[in-house]
């Protein structure tokens, strides 16, 4: 369990902006000294909060990074960040990747709601929530989807009725990632039942420890999952915990979704990881896998069809990574600090690619990819098979592929609605 820490800017993070190359070598030296060897190339990532037990080594790594503002490197120092620009942040990331260092902090707080609060939160909200995220004290979950809404988010029915200085929340959410482990939820609620669908929605910042909140785990086709359903019965939320404007939550939510899409399609995002991603972690790449299973007497690796499919996936993987880099550079030049429509493209491409990759993965494993449990399969094989099933969710969750294509067609290409 990590303890509350105060933010004390270290000397290093207080120094003036270094040139790219100086920064790179200083990062490299620092990582060499501070990143625990045992975590390199496959450490568990810390998601913040206190409801899950965490390896002390992971917390040690977290603390080291926090001391430099690197748990949220691009955030202002006032909120626990290091105030890095995009280029420096990329260098930091590259150096971490190069030694296989895990992200010191991950999850919706740092990738989604933090950036959103930074953008549109009140000064009070920023001071209240951002340092706690940076310090790893608050784990966040998202409360958008509802059982009967699906892709049509705006069809939500969870209600928030104003009662004095509080909202009273009633309803339920689903597909909440680790709701049971989270401290806070950013939650879409209907604050005006009479308004047309997309009006009358607001975003609340809701404590998961409040009275009237309960959760129930969801079992997926791949087995136990990180998701749960969340139920709210007369849950009180202070009016000050409204993010953005009342009844204009739809706009806020769209912005939040853009942050989410953007984070999901990057390495480290849930979608960029897992077996078969080209991005390290404990995943074997397709070509590694093919060599492993191709060494058998059936000579599968010499199968030119499979080889071609593997190469196609790996080539698209590389093209996608280059496109991410290009988008970063273009954003850095334009000064437009935040991703927008283009995130739909990355969400679409990366999830479809992961899906294709996992189909290829399963194909390469042959009979060994068909196991469910038991000693006839290695743990890696069983994990890969389940991940193949799990990966079917990526093109659905966080705005399904069809919705992303609609966005690209309407907002980027300007085709008529």
């Amino acid at each position, binding site marked *: 369990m990590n303890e509350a820490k105060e933010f004390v800017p270290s000397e290093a993070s207080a120094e003036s902006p270094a040139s790219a190359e100086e920064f790179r070598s200083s990062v490299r030296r620092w990582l060499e000294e501070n990143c625990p060897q045992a975590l390199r190339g496959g450490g568990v990532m810390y998601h913040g909060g206190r409801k899950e037990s965490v390896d002390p080594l992971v917390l040690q790594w977290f603390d080291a990074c926090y001391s430099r503002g690197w748990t949220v490197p691009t955030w202002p120092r006032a909120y626990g960040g290091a105030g890095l620009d995009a280029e420096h942040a990329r260098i930091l990331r590259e150096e971490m990747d190069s030694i296989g260092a895990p992200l010191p902090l991950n999850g919706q707080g740092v990738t989604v709601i933090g950036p959103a609060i930074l953008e549109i939160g009140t000064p009070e909200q920023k001071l209240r929530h951002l340092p706690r995220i940076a310090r790893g004290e608050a784990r966040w979950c998202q409360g958008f*989807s509802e059982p009967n809404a*699906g*892709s*049509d988010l705006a*069809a939500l029915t969870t209600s928030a009725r104003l009662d004095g200085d509080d909202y009273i929340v009633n309803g339920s959410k*689903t*597909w909440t990632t680790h709701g049971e482990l989270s401290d806070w939820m950013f939650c879409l609620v209907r604050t005006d039942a009479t308004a047309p*669908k997309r009006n009358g929605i607001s975003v609340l910042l809701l404590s998961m420890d409040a009275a009237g909140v309960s959760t129930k785990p*969801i*079992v*997926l*086709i791949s*087995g136990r999952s990180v998701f749960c359903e969340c139920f709210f019965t007369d849950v009180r939320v202070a009016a000050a915990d409204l993010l953005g404007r009342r009844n204009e939550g739809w706009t806020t939510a769209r912005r939040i979704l853009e942050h989410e899409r953007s984070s999901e399609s990057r390495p480290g995002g849930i979608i960029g990881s897992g077996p078969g991603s080209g991005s390290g972690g404990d995943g074997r790449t397709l070509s590694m896998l093919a060599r492993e*299973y191709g060494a*058998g*007497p*059936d000579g*599968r690796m010499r*199968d030119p*069809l*499979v080889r071609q499919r593997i190469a196609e996936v790996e080539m698209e993987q590389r093209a996608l990574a280059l496109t991410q880099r290009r988008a970063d550079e273009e954003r850095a030049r334009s000064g437009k600090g935040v991703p927008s429509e283009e995130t739909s493209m990355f969400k679409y491409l990366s999830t479809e690619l992961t899906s294709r990759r996992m189909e290829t993965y*399963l*194909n390469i*494993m*042959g*009979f*060994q*990819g*068909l*196991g*469910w*449990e*038991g*000693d*006839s*399969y290695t743990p890696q094989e069983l994990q890969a*098979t389940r991940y193949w*099933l799990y990966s*079917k*969710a990526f*093109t*659905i*969750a966080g705005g*399904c*592929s*069809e919705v992303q*294509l609609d966005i690209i067609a309407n907002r980027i290409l300007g085709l008529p609605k």
Partner: protein
Amino acid sequence: MSLILDEEQQLLQTSARGFFSARAPISQLRALRDENVTDCFDRATWSQMVELGWAGIPWPERFGGLAFGFKGLGVITEQSGRCLTASPLISSIWLCGAAILLAGSETQKLHYLPSIANGRHLLAMAFEERLRHAPGEIDLLARRTSHGFVLSGGKRFVLDGISADTIIVAARICNSACDTGGISLFLVPRDTPGVTAVSTRILDSRNVASIDFIDVQVPDSALLGAVGQGPELLDAALDIARIGLAAEMLGSAQECFERTVQHLKDRRQFGVALGSFQSLKHRAAQMFCQLELSRSVVLEALTALDEDRGRPEIAKLASLAKARLGATFHRVTREAVQMHGGIAMTDEFDIGLFIKRAAVADQTFGDVDYHVRRYAELEGY
């Protein structure tokens, strides 16, 4: 013979459809899985199927069959596919029954076929040794002795291997000085000393076994077919089973598709039915076309079996059917998950069971790649 069902076959279809949805609906598969039943199928349901005569439909009456043709068996198997019913239809009837029918001696036929048809025997075929379907690669050895053979080696992915009482084993016969004798099939009782089966419940909640044979002694009479006849016999029996499996896959894919179309009509998003979105419409229409093609190749392959059109033609049609159904079932299940959205990802919803079955069925008896390649080879290019 024709590509459509005659009246008798239609009646059989109706009754099979009624049977499976009443006695062996998808909830049965779920219960077998959750209760961890070793066989991974329901013995009582199987007994009822046997009583209906379905375990011997295509065989001559003197072997306990109904002489109702493979098309008849196909009709039933397709309906079992609709409910994802787990049963020994494929392993014991389509595959092992076919092998005995094709190459058994009169004695073997009279011993096995009636008792398969009346439910006394369950058979399984042990031939896979590699990472994927490779019936041509057999290393398991059969050493000749003075009064029979001694089998040594291992097999994997034996469908219903844990439930069968008799295993048909493909082995490489090795004479005195371990020359490359012919590959042959042997009928081996499961309780023969030296036979050890380890069963695994796989992805689709069915059972496959890995079976070890350690110095297993069998008499000469265990030979099924002539010495060295194994490859062609295995190929022929597998083709019959591939056609049967394709029929089952057709039923599953059709059911999964119909559920998806119904969902497109029922589910409302953005104020309209999901099925009014043109991109989903087009994909649904494409699936419909693929299913129509699938139905035709299955019916043609079944017809060819009943007409006994002979090896090269039946082999081509078996590959045509298995490849087409592999691709169609794959596509339909992937689209079903995507079109249903999040609900399809949950274990309590049935669509996930279809996608799992599609993955296993594709690899069983050769996947799409395998059969497209085989078709090309059979066509001589």
